[in-house]
């Protein structure tokens, strides 16, 4: 709470002073935009879910320069978006008083867009601030009470909308045509080389299960539970692929020592690498929505353990996700998760997109 207050204070201190523009016709200005900056929701789910918006914007503005603002962690993915002309990457998640964030603000200001779209009902105040810093004539975003960053605010009846719903609303309001869902896939060549190098040339996708250990916003899984989960998974599958962040490295160490040879560990710093490796796994078990969103986009069967209402994070139309809801991560039980994964993999040969 204290941190959020300090952030808001800093943003107000550093923020641009509001100037009063001459009145203008919003719709005309939106249609005339030739430089468009898109600020996706900070989280990876918002970034992936926003792909529909990037595509629709590109289709509606074929001649415009479309710029995408991305956190450094997602920059690797952002640069692979063919609908975007330019990616501006920076430490969006860093402290607002840091030199890196201030530098990013200057960079955004230099882009001089005509139209800035700030996606995400619950995007951070930092993203909203960056929208304000862009000084675009039209700044569109969902209604906020903390910062006055937008001159066109969208209001929804509920804030618990999945990214797909939010994108649809955004496009509807702007009068942009949504041309259907976006599929994600992994290119064969280098992805296959990566899988061959780390999984072995003979590795069969059906033999590998991925487990994402990252805790996300919740509490981490205790060692005992993870050990039991990995053990149960290995009763059915021959190897386990563990995705982790730096916060889980001790847990990974423990698991690698316990299940040596049967557990392969990969840090999540390169999401395109994670995507390539996920494409070689039968399914993913996770309680962190970041990698879950990637798996869902790639059409990999996913068992998601969530301790809050899943409708905000998991699309109702996604056929490859099985959600196990639990307020206490220990309450799910390793056996339940392993069974859910087995059932889901057996009944879910679906794969979206093309290879």
């Amino acid at each position, binding site marked *: 709470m204290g941190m959020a207050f300090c952030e808001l204070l800093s943003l107000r201190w550093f923020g641009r002073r509001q100037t009063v523009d001459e009145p203008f016709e919003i719709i005309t200005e939106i249609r005339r935009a030739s430089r468009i900056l898109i600020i996706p929701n900070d989280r990876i789910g918002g970034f992936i879910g926003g*792909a529909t918006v990037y*595509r629709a914007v*590109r*289709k509606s503005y074929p001649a415009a320069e479309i710029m995408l603002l991305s956190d450094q962690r997602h920059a*690797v*993915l952002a640069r*692979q*978006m*063919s*609908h975007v002309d330019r990616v501006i990457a920076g430490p969006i998640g860093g402290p607002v008083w840091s030199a890196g964030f201030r530098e990013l603000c200057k960079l955004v200001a230099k882009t001089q867009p005509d139209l800035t779209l700030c996606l995400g009902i619950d995007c951070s105040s930092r993203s909203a601030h960056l929208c304000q810093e862009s000084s675009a004539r039209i700044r569109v975003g969902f209604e906020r009470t903390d910062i006055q960053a937008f001159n066109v605010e969208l209001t929804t009846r509920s804030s618990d909308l999945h990214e797909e719903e939010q994108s649809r609303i955004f496009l509807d309001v702007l009068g942009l045509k949504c*041309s*259907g*869902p*976006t*599929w*994600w*896939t*992994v*290119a064969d*060549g*280098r*992805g296959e*080389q*990566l899988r*061959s*190098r*780390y999984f072995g*040339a003979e590795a069969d996708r059906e033999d590998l299960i991925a487990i994402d250990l990252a805790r996300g916003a919740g509490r981490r899984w205790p060692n005992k539970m993870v050990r039991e989960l990995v053990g149960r998974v290995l009763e059915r599958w021959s190897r386990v692929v563990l995705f982790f962040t*730096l916060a889980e*490295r001790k847990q*990974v*160490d423990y698991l*690698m*020592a316990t299940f*040596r*040879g049967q557990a392969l*560990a990969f*840090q999540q710093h*390169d999401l*395109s*690498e994670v*995507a*390539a490796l996920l494409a070689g796994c039968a399914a993913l078990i996770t309680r962190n929505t970041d990698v879950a969103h990637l798996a869902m986009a790639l059409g990999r069967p996913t068992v998601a353990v969530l301790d809050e209402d899943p409708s905000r994070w998991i699309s109702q139309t996604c056929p490859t996700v099985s959600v196990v809801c639990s307020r206490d991560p220990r309450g799910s039980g390793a056996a339940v998760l392993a069974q859910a994964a087995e059932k889901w993999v057996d009944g879910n040969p679906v794969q979206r*997109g*093309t290879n």
Partner: protein
Amino acid sequence: MSAQLDLEVPARDDVIVLDAEVPEKIIWPVAGGKGGTGKSTLTANLGVGLALLGHKVILVDGDLGGADLHLFFDQITPPCSLANFFNREVSSLQEVLVPTPSENLKLLCGGNEFVGLANLAHQTKQKFMRHIMRLDADYVLIDLGAGTSFNTLDLFALSNDGIIVSTTEPQSRVDAYGFLKNAVYRRLHRAFGRKTRAKMMVEEFSRDSGRKSGRVEHLLESLDSVGDSEGLRAREVLGEYHPQFLLNRVRREAQIEEGQRFLQLVRQYLSVDPHYIGHVRTDSKFLEACERRRPLLIDSPNAHAVKDLCNVLMNGLGVPDRLRRFGPGHCRRIAGVARIEAKFW
């Protein structure tokens, strides 16, 4: 008669194709000029260290005719080796890789039973080198034999960052210098086309001034006089070349300083910039590990030479821990990982 048009299928705009970046394979040939400097021992241990850091490693026994790397992994008679490859029983080196107790480490054994392996024909050597380049791993370490034969020099030239192992004895340093000199001249020789003036000048220089204490800088100046591009090309070739120097069997601090002075001489006389990647102290546990046919990192993870090896890996060679468990400042923690790993060997 209608002609069938071959239309290019446009990429679908509703599909985002993600392309992963595969970590670039790093090849490190390990040579030394003199025999008995500890090349094979260090190659085996560096390979195990890299594997403990989470990287995929292939060790190649490039000591053709004198292969012994397999003995560090308790393989008296390996199931397959380079002999199978040179006999055309397999089509790629990948098929003759021998697994080790570490899932991250594989071995390509030399085939001592193959008569004439030490005297490979040029075409066979080229084929061998091409296949080495095709091996897929994060790191490929090639243990080379002693001496300065063309086979050894050409295998060493597979990388711009080959590792030279020398001990503290002057004889070893002299041979290491001789090896580096031959490697430099070989590089310059191959940089220019056949029967060009530049190539002839390199050959002449290596025969005359090169035999004495001629400096490569004088050769470069002579090449400058031939034409702009020749001199530039030669400087470019040498500018890209950064052999790495590892001092083995160190007993005193003063020996490290001597090693540094040696590198200064190399810079002065050979116009290349070698990097000092560290030293490994004398340790009797190396011998015990060799007798037990295990790498030192697995046999005695607490040995003080292990700390030196870890320092060489993480600080000298700049190898990161793929699992981000520890940074270069905590490289001793590899010993902890090695202790756990040792239970499975």
